[in-house]
């Protein structure tokens, strides 16, 4: 089931949560909506589910396989929604939670008791929690609750599966485990899925497609590799990983990063820590003077902390590279970017900090 989002806007009081969003979600994929809090990602997910409506008087539409569903209320949209805090029914056992969607079907479509039991068992097997059928939600761990919430959503054979911050409330270890498990589950059941996250690593690792959102708009859509290697905007570049920012000015169409103030438009050079090399001599192109502050050798990469233009700069190099050109604290060096991006005045200022 493909999902089309057309011209969707949403305002809460004076706050514009979504601003004319258009998005095509292909059938069968696992798509991540990625953005900082307040970027509108959860609102968009809830609008797809029918838990929020688009602003009245706008032409915003949601289509499933080309059929508009905008006017279908949530209980007739047949979407599986997994809530951030699970929203399990606290007065029902795990079994009854999963069976709920089947039991509330109109009498004519309702499966028999035996069918319900079989279907619930099957789902519990799928999420590997068969042995917990008679427990209550309060007796489960966070990760188990999350999997029950997922089984419950799948019970109604949803046309699309929507997950709101599915790993948000879990601790780091369970999170990583559940991430792999969700990817694996998706590869087994192939239902079109969208999940919301503010964690770029999670989005890049789990999804086939990443939609980066900021301030109610979509900044970029693409495969994880593509958005990471080829960020469309300064925001995407900063949001998808650690970045060093160097401030300079354009002088004869060349960026200049020397300390003295020069005439010309202000520019920012963005370089990821692993895209900088440390040299004793300036290179041919852009070279930035820096002073080594600290070297951290523990870890899979050598982390070198330097200061340049009065700011902290991070450089990550492999151990063998470091062994070839070792540096010590206090040493004056040059930084040469291998891959970098330059942004001028037109790129909007971003509050996101490295």
């Amino acid at each position, binding site marked *: 089931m493909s999902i089309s989002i057309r011209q969707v806007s949403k305002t*809460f009081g004076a706050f514009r949560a979504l601003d004319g969003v258009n998005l095509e979600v292909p059938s069968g994929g696992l798509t991540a909506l990625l953005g900082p809090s307040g970027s509108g990602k959860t609102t968009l997910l809830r609008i797809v589910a*029918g838990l*929020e*409506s688009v602003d009245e*008087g706008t032409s915003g539409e949601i289509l499933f396989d080309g059929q508009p569903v905008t006017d279908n*209320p*949530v209980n007739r949209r047949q979407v599986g929604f997994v809530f951030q805090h699970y929203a399990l029914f606290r007065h029902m056992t795990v079994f009854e939670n999963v069976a709920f969607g089947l039991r509330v079907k109109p009498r004519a479509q309702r499966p028999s008791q035996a069918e319900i039991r079989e279907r619930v068992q099957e789902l519990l097997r799928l999420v590997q929690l068969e042995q917990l059928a008679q427990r209550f939600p309060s007796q489960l761990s966070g990760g188990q609750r999350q999997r029950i919430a997922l089984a419950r959503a799948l019970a109604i054979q949803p046309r699309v599966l929507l997950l709101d911050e599915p790993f948000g409330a879990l601790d780091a270890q369970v999170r990583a485990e559940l991430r792999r498990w969700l990817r694996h589950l998706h590869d087994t059941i192939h239902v079109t899925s969208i999940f919301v996250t503010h964690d770029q690593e999670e989005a890049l690792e789990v999804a086939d497609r990443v939609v980066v959102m900021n301030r109610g708009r979509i900044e970029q859509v693409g495969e994880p590799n593509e958005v990471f290697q080829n960020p469309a905007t300064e925001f995407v570049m900063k949001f998808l990983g650690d970045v060093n920012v160097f401030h300079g000015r354009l002088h004869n169409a060349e960026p200049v990063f020397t300390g003295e103030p020069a005439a010309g438009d202000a520019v920012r050079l963005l370089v990821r820590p692993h895209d900088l090399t440390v040299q004793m001599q300036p290179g041919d192109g852009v070279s930035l003077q820096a002073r080594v502050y600290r070297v951290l050798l523990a870890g899979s990469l050598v982390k070198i902390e330097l200061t340049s233009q009065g700011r902290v700069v991070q450089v990550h190099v492999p151990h063998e590279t470091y062994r070839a050109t070792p540096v010590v604290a206090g040493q004056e060096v040059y930084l040469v970017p291998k891959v970098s991006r330059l942004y001028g005045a037109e790129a909007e200022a971003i509050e996101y900090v490295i």
Partner: protein
Amino acid sequence: MNRLKFKQNSVLPGFGLSLGFTVFYLSLIVLVPLSALILRSAEGGLEGFWRTVSQPRVLASFRVTFASALQAALLNVVFGVTVAWFLVRGRFPLKRLVDALVDLPFAMPTAVSGIALTALLAPNSALGLALARLGVQVAFTPHGITVAMIFIGLPFVIRSVQPALADLSAELEEAASSLGATRAQTLWRVVLPLLAPSILSGFTLAFARALGEYGSVVFIAGNMPMRTEIASLLIITKLEQFDYTGATAIAVALLALSLLGILAINLIQARAARHWGN
């Protein structure tokens, strides 16, 4: 659409039905009858209103009602804080039972409390005789009114203070002691300011309840005009004489005075909250 502005949209159904029924039923049972009180009191005009409420007997009833309610609420602060302290901090095997008993004055029909307190304190009862020997008469005097009002107000203070006291972390008091405060200083400068809002709201509830109380007071009061006649009783007396205008005027005055009293206490509370920063 207008509706969107009126209500933030939500997917949950039943807003129109539940709100419609709520407003309809509220109007039927509460708002329309209460508006009758306001409208009927306006019929007599301001002059008629003033003539009624400035009668010495009416003024005396207000004085008796307010003075007793104030006394009772103040004493209830002492009793209520003591019992709440016991329920939270005390060690006693049957604490659960005592905790449940606290609600009895609230659950007891007021007429039953009234005759029980009267029987307990009547001049010919054992307790009444003992008190008489000390030169105190409680039943059929203003003291009796205060006792009845203490009885019905006690749970309000206890139930306001108890949760606030339970929330009070022992660490705060330990911190105060570790900084060199004596036990008295800790109580006065740390514990009391933190409990003050809940004490004051318990006081307000007990006071408001006492002002309007009828059933538990009317038996023990003796109901002597000018001395032990409370405002609520005077309303009934006027009604029995079919003096609707008089009854309405007293009712409006009582309602207005008690609202003013509660408002004043709330203002004190707001100021105290600012002063203590919580």
